[in-house]
């Protein structure tokens, strides 16, 4: 037993040992001029951490971005799968150990941004270092603010999306036009609707709660306990009243969005959701959803948010990472990404800042076939509230709905 204890202590002592061997401070990296960054970043490997569950997105990265940054800068871009809390934990563990990071660029937003700021794992502010930053639509509150947190140059906008309902028009002739109509609709069409118990489902609940409150301004700024308690209580009342008419009589909920998508694709439910307004086109093009799938935004609106690129503070190739991020927000890369046949991710550039020829290219992109036009839903966009609303909804959805018996 003594031996084991010794081993244990030896292992624990590893916790405290090992000094920092980072070769440059973030300030030193960011003090360089762009030509210096360009010179230093060339011919380096860059590791980018992102969600890798969509072949179209992966294809955009591996057959377009990867060869382009190789051609332009000799950068060897490696893409790997990591996201959300797992990513935050890895970066936090590296930082706690005082070691340089294995990651250079991370694809983040909202609560992950918040977490990475909390553990101080991001390099920055870096956005105004990027030559292409002047194209960014940084006056747009849906782009310059991430879950009520000012972006402040700590993450670079990459794409912008809005939450939509997706329904099968061959099964549902007239979907509920508003959140107010939703309970009556669900009651009239039992078994067709459910709420996924994950990120997208929480965005649905947030939008629903804001619709109930009637005033999106209530959810601006820091988390407000009184506002949350009042309107989440209202939300649970309404959800629980409709619950017997949900899929499987509301006795259970899908744990993942992918599973809800499969239920929808198999025809078991008539509704699914997406945080990306163009996803319906993407999924129909891949043959996943039936061609009768349509997306729309119910009134008074749904949450619109942006997703971002962060550079890791302990990055071993920060200059090369900046070069890649700068490329990803270039008009060419953004145009390609916005094509619904490529990815369909809405641009974060200010079209007015582009040349007339570039602007025309953006305007002439093949339009979405099954998703609503961007212009028609912009008026129905709600800003993301503080991350705490999401955290609390997630906890309380379990306590007040999932674990509560169906009435």
């Amino acid at each position, binding site marked *: 037993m003594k031996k*084991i204890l010794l081993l244990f202590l030896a*292992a624990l002592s*590893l*916790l405290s*040992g*090992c000094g920092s061997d980072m070769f440059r401070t973030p300030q030193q990296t960011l003090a360089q001029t762009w030509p210096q960054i360009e010179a230093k970043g060339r011919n380096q490997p860059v*590791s980018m*951490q992102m*969600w*890798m*569950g*969509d*072949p*179209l997105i*992966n*294809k955009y990265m*591996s*057959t377009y971005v990867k060869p382009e940054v190789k051609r332009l800068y000799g950068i060897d871009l*490696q*893409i*790997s*799968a*990591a996201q959300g809390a*797992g990513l935050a*934990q*890895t970066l936090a*563990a*590296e930082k*706690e*150990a005082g*070691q340089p990071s*294995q*990651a250079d660029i991370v694809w983040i937003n909202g609560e992950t941004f918040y977490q990475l700021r909390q553990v101080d794992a991001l390099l920055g502010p870096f956005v105004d270092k990027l030559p292409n930053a002047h194209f960014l639509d940084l006056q747009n509150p849906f782009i310059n603010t991430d879950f009520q947190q000012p972006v402040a140059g700590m993450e670079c906008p990459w794409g912008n999306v809005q939450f939509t309902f997706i329904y099968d028009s061959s099964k549902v002739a007239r979907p509920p036009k508003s959140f107010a109509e939703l309970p009556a609709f669900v009651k009239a069409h039992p078994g067709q609707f459910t709420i996924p118990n994950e990120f997208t489902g929480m965005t649905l609940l947030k939008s629903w709660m804001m619709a109930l409150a009637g005033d999106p301004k209530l959810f601006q700024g820091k988390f407000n306990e009184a506002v949350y308690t009042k309107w989440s209580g209202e939300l649970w009342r309404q959800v629980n009243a409709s619950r017997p008419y949900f899929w499987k009589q509301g006795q259970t909920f899908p744990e*993942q*969005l*992918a599973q809800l*998508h*499969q239920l929808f*694709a*198999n*025809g*078991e439910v008539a509704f699914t959701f997406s945080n990306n307004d163009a996803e319906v086109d993407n*999924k129909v093009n*891949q*043959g*996943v959803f*039936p061609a009768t799938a349509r997306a729309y935004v119910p009134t008074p609106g749904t949450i619109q948010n942006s997703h971002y690129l962060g550079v890791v503070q302990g990055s071993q190739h920060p200059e090369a990472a900046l070069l890649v991020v700068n490329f990803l927000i270039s008009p060419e890369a953004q145009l390609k990404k916005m094509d619904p046949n490529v990815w369909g991710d809405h641009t974060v550039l200010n079209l007015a800042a582009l040349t007339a020829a570039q602007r025309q290219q953006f305007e002439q992109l093949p339009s979405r076939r099954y998703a609503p036009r961007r212009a028609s839903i912009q008026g129905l966009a709600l800003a993301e509230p503080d991350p705490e609303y999401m955290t609390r909804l997630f906890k309380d959805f379990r306590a007040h709905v999932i674990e509560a018996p169906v009435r």
Partner: protein
Amino acid sequence: MRSKLLTTLLGGLFALPFGLLALLAVAPGWRFPAVLPAEYSLGALRSLLAADNELLAGLGRSLLLASVVAAVATAGGFGLAWAIARTARPGRWEALSYLPYALPPVLLAVLIQPFIIRLHLSGSVGGVLVGLLLIALPFATLLLRSFWSQQATEYEQLARTLGCTPRQAFQQVLLPLAWPLLRTALFQTFLLSWFDFGFTNLLSVGKVRTLTVQVFTYVGEANAQLAAVASLLLLLPPALLLWVNKKALLRRPDLG
């Protein structure tokens, strides 16, 4: 008759997943209530090949990593089981071998990550090997522990009495005797590493891109056709290996 029925039943049970996955893999938009797909296409396979042009390299990496883990774990486990049988308190060692399994894998990976980082193994094959061996080595040890019984020792001694050198006794008596268990250990530890996504992806921070790491995420995503293609890509290489090595794997060793 009963024997045939049993064979057919189990054969059918084990073949069904391959059949259904193969159909799903070539069937876009196959929905309730169609029992068979209305149309067939290789679109999902093509889009997967297009999305990652390193699949072949990943296959090689997977094979190499899994072979190393299987060989080290099985050989190590065999030796460890022998060494444990000779300690004063084999039961204690056996109990210790269960320690890595007391932590569910989702937890174990996260909890050892800080130490892998401090050992400067994060982001490398070395870190992945440590993580995989942490699971595979005690598995093989415990599985092979049952071999070093009184009986095996007696066989070994008998061989020595009959004039075998220790090496001969090992090669000609013990190894053949242990082969059924050894091949199960080899096979299981190979697959354990082959199918691992969590440890490999987390401990290498995504840098050791095995085939599993490349296609695993698709299995859990919304696109059922793609998930089926990815599943088959994971299943077929070991199935092929099983087929090729069937003779070696199943040969009944001559006890001489």
